[in-house]
């Protein structure tokens, strides 16, 4: 009987988003809508220098001319976004920035506890420095001192703009320029915060850097801006993970992440994305339009993107690599899970410019319910990319018969010495596999979770330990209710 009750409870839980709550910390908000005044307001709030405001305004003015040119090539359907119906700035009402966790609002700390990020414990035990973004403003940065001693800069973007203007001016927008695309341009105009990382020459960053994002204010678009620079011969592993409270309004999220990798340097960037996906009928949920790009500028430089995308109503995201340095390499490992009415159009771009550049793409898409998942990828070999190589593998797994999986690979090779390989499979979880697992005592949801985790293993095992466990659980949670 106990187990039956457990099952009943588990089923009931499916209807509630696991992280669906809201803290009621008053926000210091800008008025609703988007205008030049709002851009100036944000810049003023952040006490930004003139050059930063100018950049924002340049982007905003460009965006105005494109307002009706939202990209429509992705296989996504959603109502037209009213950009005037959103708030563009909100910060937790904290007064002066806290100097330690003791000064942080206990309510905030409580929220982190619920999210499973006990900062104190992390600080003491895990050795992970956390730059926690709460409603667009960073409120706590741990391990900063230790990282400082090593010459690592790990701070909120707003702080970097003030404290390290020479680095920000040199690199911000150098990978994703303000004119890059509709959403990136919007981000340039109104981004509120994000993370800035600089790893000095020759340093192998001894701890994984991690940031947790959280959207909390009603109707607050989140526009993070992240910039990571790995100087010559350095290495860093960066983790990004996020959850959001439940709500009915669609929330716009348009982040930009830029990675700069110099000679012999390496960046490993891992994401677990678990934003509110909307309810079973597709009501609510986050709209996630993200531009992530890495510039492998130096010779032998390396970037590894790993993403586990289980949340959001709409995902539009193509973490890419520009392989400019000779012998540079880019890898993209992706798991995208869609359930109910979720839609994901995600993939990568590998642009081979330098000699002997290599890229590897492993994309796993899982669709359940009435969802749609699209892999969209571009492998481009430019004329000078002598000896370039690419391997792409796209696997789709379907659960049920009302979902869709689509693969849209583009391969453009302009160098005859280049080699590209593409493999793709589409499969369904068979009734026989399900019966086999159930015959061993697993309930249908456990069985699905196990089979899907097996399907994704190649990707999940590239995640750092802390994330791998969480990701495995997420795979199960996000497919709850997809059977039976």
């Amino acid at each position: 009987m106990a187990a039956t009750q457990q099952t009943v409870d588990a089923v009931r839980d499916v209807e509630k988003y696991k992280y669906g709550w809201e803290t009621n910390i008053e926000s210091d908000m800008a008025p609703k809508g988007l205008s030049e005044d709002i851009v100036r307001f944000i810049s003023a709030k952040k006490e930004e220098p003139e050059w930063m405001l100018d950049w924002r305004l340049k982007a905003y003015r460009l965006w105005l001319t494109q307002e009706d040119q939202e990209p429509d090539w992705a296989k996504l359907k959603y109502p037209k976004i009213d950009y005037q119906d959103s708030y563009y700035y909100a910060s937790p009402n904290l007064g002066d920035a806290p100097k330690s966790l003791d000064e942080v609002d206990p309510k905030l700390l409580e929220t982190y506890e619920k999210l499973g990020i006990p900062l104190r414990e992390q600080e003491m035990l895990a050795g992970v420095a956390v730059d926690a973004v709460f409603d667009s403003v960073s409120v706590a940065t741990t391990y900063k001192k230790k990282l400082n001693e090593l010459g690592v800069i790990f701070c909120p973007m707003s702080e970097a703009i003030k404290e390290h203007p020479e680095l920000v001016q040199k690199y911000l927008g150098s990978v994703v320029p303000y004119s890059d695309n509709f959403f990136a341009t919007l981000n340039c105009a109104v981004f509120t915060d994000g993370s800035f990382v600089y790893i000095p020459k020759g340093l192998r960053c001894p701890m994984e850097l991690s940031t947790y994002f959280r959207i909390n204010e009603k109707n607050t678009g989140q526009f993070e801006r992240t910039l990571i620079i790995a100087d010559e011969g350095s290495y860093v592993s960066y983790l990004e993970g996020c959850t959001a409270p439940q709500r009915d309004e669609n929330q716009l999220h348009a982040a930009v992440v830029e990675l700069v990798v110099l000679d012999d340097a390496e960046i490993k960037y891992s994401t677990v994305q678990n934003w509110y996906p909307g309810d079973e009928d597709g009501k609510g949920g986050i709209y996630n339009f993200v531009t992530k790009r890495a510039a492998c500028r130096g010779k032998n430089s390396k970037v590894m993107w790993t993403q586990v995308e289980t949340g959001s109503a709409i995902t539009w995201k193509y973490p890419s690599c520009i392989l400019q340095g000779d012998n540079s390499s880019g890898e993209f490992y992706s798991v995208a899970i869609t359930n109910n009415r979720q839609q994901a159009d995600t993939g990568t771009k590998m642009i081979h410019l330098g000699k002997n550049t290599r890229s590897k793409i492993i994309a796993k898409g899982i669709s359940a319910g009435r969802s749609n998942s699209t892999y969209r990828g571009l492998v481009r070999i430019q004329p000078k990319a002598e000896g370039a190589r690419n391997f792409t593998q796209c696997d789709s797994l379907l659960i049920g018969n009302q979902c869709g999986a689509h693969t849209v690979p583009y391969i453009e090779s302009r160098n005859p010495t280049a080699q590209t390989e593409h493999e793709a499979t589409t499969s369904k979880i068979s009734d026989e596999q399900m019966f086999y697992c159930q015959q061993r005592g697993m309930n249908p949801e456990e069985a699905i979770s196990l089979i899907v985790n097996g399907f994704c293993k190649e990707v999940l095992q590239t995640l750092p330990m802390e994330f791998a466990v969480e990701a495995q659980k997420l795979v199960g949670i996000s497919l709850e209710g997809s059977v039976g």
Partner: protein
Amino acid sequence: MSLIEIKDLHVSVDGKEILKGIDLNMDGGEIHAIMGPNGTGKSTLSYVLAGKDGYEITQGSVLFDGKNLLDMEADERARAGVFLAFQYPMEIPGVATATFLKTALNAKRREQGLDEIDAMDFLNLIKSKTKELEIPYEMIKRPLNVGFSGGEKKRAEVLQMSLLEPRFAILDETDSGLDIDALKVVSDGVNALRSPDRAFLIITHYQRLLSYIVPDHVHVLVGGRIVESGDKTLAELLEAEGYARFEESEAA
């Protein structure tokens, strides 16, 4: 009351009647063998008892430990102690055998109100079980059944059975695809599990397996009915004479 009571069981697939009234009682400690020619409903019986979808029970009942087995989902039956060793075990790509075993074991423990098994305890348990069954320890790190030979698959089935300690184990053509050495290892594994509170139903085409796992009762299934029952000597007789005489009477 017997551990398993099958009464007048009629089963159809796509409107075609496959089982036409099976009656069978099994007590704990007993080994029953069901023999018969191909296409006579042997595998249907094992799937129906294990709870696979796609079979329509038109008449009859099955009680397991006094409970109506046919009302339970496949996973509930498994957790209650019904185990089916598959003729063709499924491949689960990317899932290490150890992971699969642990998930199954924990599902059962949860049902019993126990905590999940401790990682070290699990490893020790697996080590001793694989040793007993002469399974190379390396095998449990490989994805379940993926690239396993016929013999390895059947050993993996017996390993699972040994770990889950069912009260009612059904072995569906476990001898198919086994060479004589593997057959012996698998049989030893099954014999080691013989116990007064556990019943086995062994489905086989050949008598061969039954020289290693000696049954208490042998039933002949032909045309969806048990046409004769006896002790182990019936199996030997069948081996010598074949099923011809039953098939003739079925046709008549």
